[in-house]
C-alpha cells in the first residue's frame, strides 16, 4: 500500500495505491490518521483509482476514519472506486456516510 496526499483549495486529496486488506490495514490506518491530523483542510476526498483490491477489512478502516473525522465535522468523500469496490460499498452502506463524488 502506498498513500499519497495533497491539499488544494481547503480539500485534502488522498490517493490509495495497492491492496487494502488485513495485511495493509494497520499501515493504512496509521498513515491516514497522521495525514488527517493536519489542520489545513475542511473536506477529504479519498481517491481509489489506484486501489487494486479491497475486502471488508478496508471497510472497517474507512469507517474508523469516518468516526474520527466526524468529531471534527470534516466530511469524507469517495472518488473513482472500481466496480468491485463499489459493490462492497453498496453492500455495506458505506456511501451513506462517505458519499461518492464524480
Amino acid at each position, binding site marked *: 500500500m502506498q498513500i499519497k496526499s495533497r491539499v488544494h483549495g481547503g480539500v485534502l486529496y488522498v490517493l490509495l495505491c495497492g*491492496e487494502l*486488506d*488485513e*495485511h495493509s490495514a494497520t499501515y493504512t*490506518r496509521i498513515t491516514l490518521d497522521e495525514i488527517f491530523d493536519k489542520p489545513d483542510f475542511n473536506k477529504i476526498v479519498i481517491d481509489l483509482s489506484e486501489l487494486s*483490491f479491497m*475486502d*471488508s*477489512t478496508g*471497510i*472497517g*478502516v474507512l*469507517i*474508523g476514519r469516518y468516526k474520527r473525522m466526524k468529531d471534527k465535522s470534516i466530511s469524507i468523500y469517495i472518488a473513482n472506486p472500481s*466496480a*468491485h469496490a463499489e*459493490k*462492497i460499498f453498496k*453492500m*455495506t452502506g458505506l456511501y451513506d456516510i462517505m458519499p461518492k463524488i464524480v
Partner: protein
Amino acid sequence: MKYSNFMEVTFKALSVNEGFARVCVASFCVQLNPSVDEITDIKTAVSEAVTNCVVHAYPSSVKGDVILRCELEDDLVTITVTDKGVGIKDVEKAREPFYTSKPSEERSGMGFTVMESFMDDVRVASNSFGTSVKMTKKISQACEQVVG
C-alpha cells in the same frame, strides 16, 4: 462430471499470506476462463475467509496453519478454507451482517456477508478444534475447451 481438478496449499495464518492465497486461487481458476468479475468475487471471498483465520482462529502469538483447497468440477469452483484454531462459538451470530467479536478493532463485521454475496453458497462448520468454510461458485461461461 467431465472435468475435475484440484489444488491444496497449507500456509501459516499470517496476514502477509492473504495476497498469496488470493493469487493462488485466482491463478488456478483461470483454466475455467472466468470473467474478471467472477475472479474478483472469488479472490475477495478467499481473502475474507483467510482473514478470519488470521484474526480469529489463533488468538495466541503462535499462529497455526491455514489449509486452502480449490476444486474444479466442470464449471463449479469449490473453495475450502480450514484452520485448526479455537473455533467460532456461535456460527449463526458470526454470519450476521455487522457482527464482530472484536468491536474495539475497527472491524466491519461484514466478512461472511461479503462471502455470501460474492459466492453462490457458503457453508461453515466449526468446533473447538477448528473451522472450515466451504464456498462454491459456478463459472457462467466456463471454457468449453477445458470442460468440454
